[in-house]
């Protein structure tokens, strides 16, 4: 069970990382291309600004999911560390459940509704002429990964012995 989970997490993280690497690289190329077309070709390509914004949305949302996996999101652990170690585990589980609700309600459920709305309304992007719903698709997809990572974190906390549960996390 545990090894399957670890393999799953590794594969997921590798896939998301690959997407991030490509997207961040594209971001740089895209903006530089915008400057290049403006000065060298005399007229700025009109899609670069829009594409850059959409890439940023995808990097941000998928990257956020990865950050849940690596526990990189900023938090305040000052108060919780004043508690007795036994209580750490309880509070750790609570924090993970709360995060699960966040990912499920806002990203999975809200995000899906938002995508469906945008697709139904046939909202288009001004420069590229794409359906805006596809851009927003990053929301539910990130939601799926957030839920998976948080479930994994939850399992980890539950399995840990009380005194190392909710071990201090790196503040990025």
């Amino acid at each position, binding site marked *: 069970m545990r090894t399957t989970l670890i393999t799953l997490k590794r594969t997921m993280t590798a896939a998301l990382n690959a997407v991030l*690497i490509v997207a961040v690289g594209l971001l740089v190329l895209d903006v530089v291309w915008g400057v290049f077309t403006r000065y060298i070709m005399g007229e700025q390509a009109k899609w670069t600004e829009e594409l850059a914004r959409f890439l940023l949305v995808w990097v941000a949302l998928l990257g956020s999911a990865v950050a849940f996996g690596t526990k990189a999101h900023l938090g305040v652990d000052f108060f919780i560390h004043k508690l007795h170690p036994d209580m750490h585990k309880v509070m750790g589980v609570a924090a993970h459940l709360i995060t699960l609700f966040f990912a499920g309600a806002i990203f999975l459920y809200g995000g899906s509704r938002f995508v469906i*709305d945008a697709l139904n309304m046939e909202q288009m992007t001004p420069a590229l002429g794409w359906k805006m719903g596809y851009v927003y698709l990053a929301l539910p997809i990130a939601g799926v990964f957030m839920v998976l990572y948080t479930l994994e974190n939850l399992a980890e906390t539950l399995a840990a012995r009380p005194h190392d549960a909710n071990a201090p996390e790196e503040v990025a």
Partner: protein
Amino acid sequence: MGMVALVLVTVFLLLLVMHVPIAVSIALASFFAIVAAGMDPTLVLAGRMANGINSFALLAIPFFILSGHLMGRGGMARRLIDFAGALVGFLPGGLAYVNTLTCMLFGSISGSAAAAVSSVGGFMIPEMNRKGYSREFNVSVTTTAATTGLLIPPSNVMIVYSVAAGSVSIAAMFMAGVLPGILTGLFIMLVCGGFAFQKKYRREPRASLREILVSFKRAFLSLFLIVIVIGGILGGIFTATEAAAIAVVYALLLSVGLYREIPLKELPALLSRTGVTTAVVMLLIGASSGMSWIMTMANIPQTVSAALLGLSDNPVVILLTINLLLLFVGTFMDMTPAILIFTPIFLPVVTALGMHPVHFGIVLIANLCIGLCTPPVGTCLFIGCGVGQTTIARVTRTILPFFAAMIVALMVITYLPIVSLWLPVKTHQLKQAEVEKAAFMQTKATTTEEQ
């Protein structure tokens, strides 16, 4: 309306104390506040999460993060240290000035204080330890000096502020930060001088003019990045976001191509790290944009604003109150979330006092810079202590005089608007008339988004 605010604040503080990630705390506090206001939280927040970050201005953030990584790993920090050493190393306690100056230069180029602490501190702190400076002193200097890089352009947090404040020009913010950043750096150097005098710290051999020139030549290409970024923005050649992308390309050419200190195969890892670091900031921005939405709907900024303005009709008192509140906030909250949460609340108050939004942005950032170095939550202090292999408890006493210097600088910046606003006017980033109109206690400025 008051009830919605009550739900928002209570849920936020409870989640924060429970060590729920700040972004999640902000989003869920907004979630239940929207529930209380009788609206549909899932749709609103999903929309804000995506659209709060759907902004070209925010794109500069991943670029400055990436160029910071490239410069830290790629030998540019090292060249800046050599140059600063040749300039000011001969003074008593010379390495402390070298450290401060390098932090200002490096933080200036990379746009990130955390990057400055880890890159500059990673080299300077061990070096200073070796030469007999006290460990606590070294960590204190590096930690506080690194924050000046957030005031000296370019700076990621200024971009965050510009977006949070509505249509405040990023180029104007960049220009406005130059003098306050240098001022803060000078005050920090004064404290260093005090320590050096009291503890009789050593000086480095005086560099000959030739050595200065040689080190300058070696650092020239790294320093030239400032010229490209700032000159490019001011000269109207490119926007702040484009300048940041150009900075990435430039740093890449230097560190991978010319200096060959980063092997090509390390690039994917740097890109992915950039992606995740960016995402951490962006999730905060998305969540905060949801929070500011419900705060606006529930008229919370107006309520706070009315309360603050009701305190006194003296702008000096109100600004002092705001500064004290922010100093308190800064002790336990990181800079980005603090900017995102408090800009919509305080901006209407200070513009009602006639303060220019650009000036307020600088005050806000200068204030929260102090928070980056204070326990319990202080990113720079954490990194500094990590690099310097000491504990927060041991640094606390030594760092106090440095806080004092930063607070004095903050007061100067707050009460002398000209320190912030002179340069943006001179460089045509702000209109003279607009600044005069906001010459402290007059009518309010407005934000518009006409086409």
